[in-house]
């Protein structure tokens, strides 16, 4: 397994290095679909230049990265390309290892369930065999590394790549069962952009399952574990925030980073829903809709956790997808991170998924065209770009709900059998009621 992975890594690094050296690199780092005011490399360089001039980077409104990024790139600004390629490589390797480990656990569970005769006889074809799952980890890593969205994000040197690396390491440490590392990586991810906070529930559920602690609100062991995890998570978060304070000696970064993510003052167009909505918002309702949109991101945590409490790993991927669609400044790098669940496709709705994926591809092709028409040619106006944004987001939502539907249906078949009969013996159809 190591050889194909190494080959894949080499290919990925070569592609990125080739693009770095070409003239496309400058063009890509200016695209609004790939970089946002939060993640643009130009702004990181600007922040470092302001620091050199003796002005705090947070005194203006150009720089919105966390102080640890300043600290990191203060030393690495000349090796930026290598840093971002390394981040992609780390993400791919972490995903590979975590999927491999997860597959082992899935097989173990399946074995016990087969021995306990828990599956109905006719759904044996749905059970996964080691042979068909052998190449899944490699496929996941390939899907992430050779995804054009990821490559664009890396070539543009968007700090979203670093965020994805931290989240991948979090997934790896959670699946391996390491509670402390999981809490630390999650707090790092939350520190950089607030939204990974919702992954807390998924991590907790998985770790509880792994340690065979039942999720029962009346048991002490459940609350003790939750308290431990919360302590580790909040503790590392406080340590990181405190470290950031001592780095620059002021709390300026709190409104500049977190205030910026939550209150969306910058209306630069991107592939998300927030910019045009708040550009055309009546002033009277601005705060109300801001709260509604931000709550919308965090709101699905509890219902999803209740429904998917037996499948926390799928819950992690669902949460990542929800975050990447509804966050305030999404970029294609976030979309790339949320596509990792592809390997769980079942045949039931693959046609639907194929159609929606085609819509996504078409929209991605139309984004630069309509941007050019609006900003450079002047023959279209902002409504064209906004329409494609809407279509892109609807396609993503449909994709996510299709995957969810396929997953739920598979679980239903596994417990109730594949070929269902109605009361009079004829073949039945399943509906959601």
């Amino acid at each position: 397994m190591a050889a194909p992975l190494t080959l894949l890594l080499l290919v990925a690094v070569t592609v990125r290095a080739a693009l770095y050296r070409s003239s496309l690199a400058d063009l890509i780092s200016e695209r609004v679909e790939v970089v946002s005011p939060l993640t643009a490399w130009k702004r990181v360089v600007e922040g470092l230049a302001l620091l050199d001039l003796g002005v705090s980077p947070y005194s203006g409104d150009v720089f919105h990265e966390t102080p640890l990024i300043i600290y990191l790139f203060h030393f690495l600004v000349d090796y930026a390309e290598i840093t971002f390629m390394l981040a992609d490589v780390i993400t791919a390797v972490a995903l590979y290892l975590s999927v491999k480990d997860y597959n082992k656990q899935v097989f173990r569970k399946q074995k016990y369930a087969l021995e306990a005769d828990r599956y109905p006889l006719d759904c044996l074809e749905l059970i996964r065999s080691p042979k068909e799952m052998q190449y899944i980890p490699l496929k996941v890593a390939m899907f992430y590394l050779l995804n054009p969205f990821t490559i664009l994000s890396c070539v543009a040197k968007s700090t979203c790549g670093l965020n994805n690396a931290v989240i991948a390491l979090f997934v790896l440490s959670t699946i391996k069962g390491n509670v402390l590392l999981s809490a630390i990586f999650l707090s790092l991810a939350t520190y950089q952009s607030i939204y990974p906070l919702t992954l807390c529930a998924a991590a907790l559920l998985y770790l509880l399952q792994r340690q065979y602690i039942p999720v029962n609100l009346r048991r002490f062991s459940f609350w003790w574990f939750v308290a431990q995890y919360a302590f580790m998570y909040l503790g590392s978060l406080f340590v990181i925030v405190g470290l950031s304070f001592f780095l620059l000696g002021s709390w300026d970064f709190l409104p500049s980073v977190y205030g910026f993510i939550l209150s969306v003052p910058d209306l630069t167009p991107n592939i998300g829903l927030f910019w045009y909505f708040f550009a055309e918002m009546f002033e009277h309702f601005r705060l109300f809709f801001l709260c509604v949109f931000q709550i919308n991101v965090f709101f699905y945590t509890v219902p999803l956790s209740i429904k998917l409490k037996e499948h926390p790993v799928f819950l992690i991927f669902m949460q990542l997808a929800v975050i990447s669609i509804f966050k305030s400044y999404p970029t294609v790098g976030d979309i790339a991170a949320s596509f990792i669940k592809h390997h769980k496709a079942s045949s039931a709705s693959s046609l639907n998924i194929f159609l929606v994926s085609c819509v996504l591809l078409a929209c991605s092709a139309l984004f630069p065209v309509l941007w050019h028409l609006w900003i450079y040619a002047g023959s279209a106006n902002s409504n064209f770009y906004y329409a494609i944004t809407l279509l892109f987001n609807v396609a993503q939502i449909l994709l996510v709900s299709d995957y969810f539907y396929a997953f739920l249906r598979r679980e239903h078949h596994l417990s109730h059998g594949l070929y269902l009969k109605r009361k009079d013996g004829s073949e039945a159809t399943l509906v959601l009621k």
Partner: protein
Amino acid sequence: GCPKDDFQEELVIRPLHSGDIYASFQFRTLWETDFMRGNKVSHYRLFPKSLGQVISKFSVRELHISFTQGYWRTMQWGQPFLPSPPGAELWVWFQDSVTDVDGTWKELTNVLSGIFCASLNFIDSTNTVQPSASFKPLGIGNVTDHRFLRYATLPREIVCTENLTPWKKLLPCGSKAGLAVLLKSEKLFHSSFHSQAVHIRPVCQDWQCKTTSWELRQTLNVVFDLHTPGQGKLEWSLFKMFSRTLTEACPLASSSKIYIDITDDPQGEQFEVSPATHLLSQAMVLGDRRTFSVYDLTQQITFGTVRSLNLLIRWKSRDMLRPLLHAERYVAGYGLQTGEIHTLMYNNHPYRSFPVLLLDSVPWYLRLYIHTLTVTSKGKDNKPSYIHYQPSKDRVRPHLLEMLVQLPPNSVTEVTVQFERALLKWTEYTPDPNHGFYVGSSVISSLVPSIVAMDTNSTREQPLFSSFFPCKEESSYFMRVYTEPLLVNLPTPDFSMPYNVICLTCTVVAVGYGSLYNLLTRSFQIEEPSPGLAKRIANIIRKMRGVPPL
């Protein structure tokens, strides 16, 4: 007794080498009083009451306000006596007794807006800056903490008769006697360049500086275009320029003079002036010794037998001259996403280099990237020795960039900086958003080396036009150059769509919510086919009878 006050008026006419004519009016009132001490001043004679109340109420130490229509073309016209940027410019030094400078600034701009009938109330924190080096006080005093300095420009402000009338009312003689009778708005605004200003500052009364008095200068600069009157003849007269002639001096003025600049033509070869005068005066202005023909309006013989004075200047030939310091500014780039501001500064001195202070105040919606700042002279990098940069905060304050650049002799220095254009909320656009947004002029202040030694005694009797900027050194004089304002287009949203956008975006969010809600709250069930209509009715009847259904 009453504190002494004194009023002087003068008009300087300078024929320009391009054939246009430059007329500069200055009206100065000196008043030995102290607004700052407790005793309220109640008896105003020559000093206008509205301005006196403004000074005492807002603890103003220096006030400079100018309204300009048109752009001063330095290359064709040389240097003005009093430079000003297009639009409105206001800069104020407050006394150090003021505790809340920002609040006082806001009130002051509103009061001045009323006095001058201008929309100065648009001055707020998004276009006000506190320059750290460029605008030192022009009067006496020992307050140099730039926390008490505020500078703002409104490049979009239009100047018209409504602004001229209250300005004229501040003069002691109004527009009834003296030089102010020439200020008729239909001729003044039919010109290439028109600028009116008010400058208030404390000055020393004598060289020992034991007493200070308040100086109020009202200046009006106008450049008449050669081709406007339509005759094309190179001939100017007071009547042609102002449609009036002079009949008497202002009775309240201690001095009322007209100066005609004849330096370029001492022998009378290039142009002739009539009626001729034998009074000549020499003065140092802008580093140059210039000779003027003087007409003293307090003397009755100036008006001659017809009892009116109509000066006539007739051109015979033309020539060209180059100013020492000159600047240009423009926006480069295409599209509505990014752009680049280029500022070019020309040093035309053949062998001397001198430093200039460049002040740039860029509105917040053009996000400057200071790491892209480059300063090049003669193709090589020219690093500024002092940079003061205050980044902007969205919707709160603009960018402030001040740099000290050494200009090499006989060279062009180019300053470039890249910016990104922001998308604003739909309510923040003006009603004509596709006109563009204005960026105020850059200010270039410098001490330019002078060819001739200059007089540093500022309290001696001098014509008004040469005593505005204080002269500290003999070998250099202070000069301020303003560049063009910029007009920049921003990307606009569709203004007809707020309700549609809200509906559509909420629909997309609802699609997400709806799909996930369905999947989360429902479970799979086997679908039973629904019975036909006849069977359903039969079932209802059976239920009513209490019999089990089909």
